[in-house]
């Protein structure tokens, strides 16, 4: 079990780190998809089937597409993925320092923390149970999420759409 | 209603599908090697040489090795080598004949110019199109022996055209014979008239125009 977890972690973290370091934006985006798939594998490992498939459907299926479209729509030329100019070396170094120190703080906190003993058996959460809980206990939250998603969709369309009037010739 | 056109289209293709099994008239496919295609009469492919006699193709080639086709051929795929001696042709007149007559059909573009320039109707277009060979250099270089085909074959593949050519050739030969006869008669008359010293200036031009007519 632990070996599988470590394997998943290596895949997930490795591809995430590579994604953050690559110069090529498309490679970054695709590596991030690999990382998100690794997260989904972690959910599977933990027994959260439904969440794992939702993760793949949303991240690998939808978010990645939006990202790739954005990359291609905003790229001027191949020179866009040139090396970072010297001015950002300090920026990279300081970012690394911040991230590393945060990792050290949280890591040490986690390592020394004590948690109540877990139940040995993997919890069995059926889709039906999730559905019932979503609809009953978290019904209000579900509605709000629905509204948020709708507003986000409309907002994104409005922000990204061209203000120019459509040429009436375009309409078939 | 939206979608009714799709249903109509599906019905048409379904009719095609069912009809293709019981109505052979619908099927346009010709299954080629088993079912030979009927070529149109004007179909042409690569040139061949006409010989008068199927029994002795090399001896009776119409070609007199004048090399007009060799010079006119746009991709220059014809190679002709003249003979040193002369052989009598169909009319009995001594003519040169080709020692070598090669056509590289990998170069030939089937333009038919050789046929059009030939004054002797010796080269014509063939209908054979299954010329694939395994050796693309020597295999596609057709020699005199491969090119020579009897006149009867020409009649088989282009009946109308061949009949027309034969008629014309026969007329020309007849005219030539008559001319020869007339010339012989004139000669005889001249011999007879030798006694009288009257000159005949019209003889030479007549003979020349007769020759020109034969050549055309």
């Amino acid at each position, binding site marked *: 079990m632990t070996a599988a977890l470590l394997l998943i972690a290596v895949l997930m973290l490795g591809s995430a780190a590579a994604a953050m370091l690559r110069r090529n934006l*498309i490679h970054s985006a*695709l590596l991030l*998809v690999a990382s998100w798939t690794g997260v989904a594998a972690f959910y599977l490992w933990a027994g959260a*089937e*439904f969440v794992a*498939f*939702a993760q*793949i*459907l949303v991240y*690998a*299926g*939808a978010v*990645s*597409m939006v990202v*790739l*479209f954005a990359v*291609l729509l905003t790229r001027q030329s191949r020179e866009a993925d040139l090396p970072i100019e010297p001015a950002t070396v300090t920026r990279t170094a300081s970012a690394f320092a911040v991230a590393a120190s945060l990792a050290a703080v949280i890591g040490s906190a986690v390592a020394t923390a004590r948690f109540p003993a877990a139940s040995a058996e993997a919890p069995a959460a*059926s*889709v*039906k149970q999730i559905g019932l809980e979503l609809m009953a206990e978290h019904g209000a939250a579900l509605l709000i999420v629905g509204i948020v998603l709708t507003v986000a969709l409309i907002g994104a369309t409005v922000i990204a759409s061209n203000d120019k009037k459509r040429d009436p010739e*375009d309409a*078939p | *209603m*939206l*979608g009714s*056109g*799709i249903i109509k*289209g*599906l019905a*048409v*293709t*379904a009719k*095609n*599908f069912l*009809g*293709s*099994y019981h109505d052979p008239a*619908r*099927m*346009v*496919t010709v*299954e080629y090697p088993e079912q030979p295609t009927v070529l149109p009469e004007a179909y042409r492919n690569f040139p061949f040489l006409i010989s008068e006699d199927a029994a002795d193709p090399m001896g009776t080639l119409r070609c007199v090795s004048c090399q007009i086709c060799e010079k006119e051929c746009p991709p220059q795929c014809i190679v002709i080598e003249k003979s040193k001696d002369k052989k009598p042709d169909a009319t009995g007149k001594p003519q040169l004949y080709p020692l070598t007559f090669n056509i590289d059909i990998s170069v030939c573009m089937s333009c038919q110019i050789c046929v059009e320039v030939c004054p002797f109707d010796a080269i014509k277009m063939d209908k054979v199109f299954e010329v694939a060979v395994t050796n693309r250099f020597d295999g596609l270089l057709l020699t005199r022996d491969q090119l020579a085909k009897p006149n009867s074959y020409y009649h088989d593949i282009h009946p109308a055209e061949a009949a027309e050519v034969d008629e014309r050739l026969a007329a020309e030969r007849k005219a030539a014979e008559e001319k020869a006869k007339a010339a012989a008669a004139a000669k005889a008359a001249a011999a007879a008239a030798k006694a009288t010293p009257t000159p005949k200036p019209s003889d030479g031009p007549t003979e020349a125009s007769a020759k020109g007519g034969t050549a055309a």
Partner: protein
Amino acid sequence: MSAAADSFLERAPLELRDWAVQLLPAPLQWISHHLITIVAVLAVFGLFFAFTTVAERKLLGRLQNRLGPNRAGLPKFSILPWHIRHKLFGLSQPFADAVKALTKEDIVPAAADKVLHFLAPVVVVGFSLMTFAVLPFGRNLIPVELDAALLYFFAAGSASELAIFMAGWSSRNKYSLLAAMRALAQLISYELPLILSVVPVVLVASTLSTSAIVQAQGAWTFGVLPHWFVFTPWGFAGFIIFLISALAESNRSPFDLPEAESELVAGHLTEYSGFKYALFFMAEYFGLTALSGLGVTVFLGGWQAPCELLYWVPSYLWFMGKLILMIMLFIWVRGTLLRLRIDQLTRLSWQFLVPLALLNVGNAAFWALTAQWSGPLQLVRWAVSAAIVIVPFLVIGRSLSAGYAPRTYRYAP
């Protein structure tokens, strides 16, 4: 009935697998159990793919009054009698094609992103095969029994979009990239109606598990009218929406814009040749087969027999029969309809399929709420449900086709 469910034919594939497993040494048995399932699915659907291609070409030929491939027979050295050896109805065409694809030169453009160029066909085949894992092929034949099977199916299917993008981008070819973008726009547009068309079934069957959905369709009225979801108003509408979206998702005509050779050379496949191209081709057919299998499972009663008398026929034969019919329907549509333009394509999805599918979800909710109605109320239930399907269809259809004169064709009646 239970006797039929336990009949020898019904259990034969499982018995065969168990027999094969117990031949192996004990330490290998736990893994070989799954490996045999995987190999069986690969073998069956690999062959199915091969013969789908030849069936498609023959059927398309017949739909257009042609013969279709009928030449490829057995090799010359076989000892069979001449008339069998000679043609074999062209049935060995796929194998000849496979040999051709395998022996072709594999060309990778000099400027291509080599890794992604290689990964794209692998990813697309891998994920399209993964979708087979949750299809119930028979009463006892389901590779993986998952609680969230439908979600898994769509999650695995969504990876093919990534593969198409990888193929288009890594080729460093403008046609490929443009085609990949168009393909993505198409796949994203049609994923929504595809999923929405299945949601009503989930709602009524109240499960995401494919085997449970098939179980929910296993009854007959008077022993002849099967309770398949396609025979309800909402189910029929969902099935039609599913069919259209499945055609678009598997990039088939009339939605084959990504490969529109007259506009985009060959789309994202332009720079692919030989075996990699064959892999894309294979993935396309696997995707088609998987989507057809899902349609059979969700709407056409899966492995259920169409009437009670035929219950004794092994369930996997019913599944395969329905699958073949589905694929023949797809081929028929391909042989009939013309390719859409990209704006027509997206308009069809967003202005027609998505609203209808959303209304259909409400329709299914009504159906589920009125499950207790009986007697004359049953008729009311059917009438209301049918009205929820038909009225929006007519209204949206009229508004979509408003402003167009009826088309006339010179050469068609």
